[in-house]
């Protein structure tokens, strides 16, 4: 339980920081770097979420379907 609360805060934190980085880089003019940073942050978080969704589906399989 505690471990997963940590991950929630991690996701929110990465989201906010990536938003700031995006704004700062945009203002300077390096729009492509901003887009890259956002994309990579998004992919990283996507990996976390995908792994937990996979966990979820495995558990559902084991509880409901007994296979």
């Amino acid at each position, binding site marked *: 339980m505690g471990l997963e609360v*940590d991950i929630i805060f*991690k996701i929110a*934190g*990465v989201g906010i*920081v*990536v938003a*700031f*980085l995006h704004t*700062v*880089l945009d*203002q*300077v*003019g390096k729009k492509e770097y901003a887009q890259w940073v956002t994309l990579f942050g998004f992919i*990283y978080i996507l990996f976390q979420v995908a792994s937990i969704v996979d966990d979820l589906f495995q558990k559902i399989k084991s509880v409901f379907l007994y296979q």
Partner: protein
Amino acid sequence: MIKLIGAVFIIVATTWIGFEISRRFSERPRQLRALRTALQSLEAEIMYGHTPLHEAARRLAEQLSKPLSTFFESFSKKLTDTETTVKEAWETSLREIWNSTALKQGEFEVMKQFGETLGRHDRISQQKHIMLTLTHLEREEADAIQAQVTYEKMVKSLGFLSGLLLIILLF
């Protein structure tokens, strides 16, 4: 607890790096301006004071602050102590101090060119060469001010934010 100390350490380190890089951007116009003042005083000394080169350089070294003072000091020392030409002494002293300044390759070329014309021609053409170098440096200074305005704040915030990102990722 150790984690917290490590996290604070990482943030401080990256913020400091950001500040260092932004300092480079803010030092460049200042040093360019100091260089221009130095050249103007050199011109005044040569034209109206008729002082020899190493004496003028020594006086300039006393007036300026680091790192330009080190430059003129080593230049005048080379002229008095060793038997090199003005051009070589100028160039070697230039190379010696260049890494400790915030100036870039453009100014280096300009100063090198200037060094090649030192002490060769009469006073009028010397003055003209000095004016030419001054104009070049002025243009570089305008460039530097523009770069500073754009990049200074950005690099500082970039440093801090990347530190934050790193500790959030590693947490």
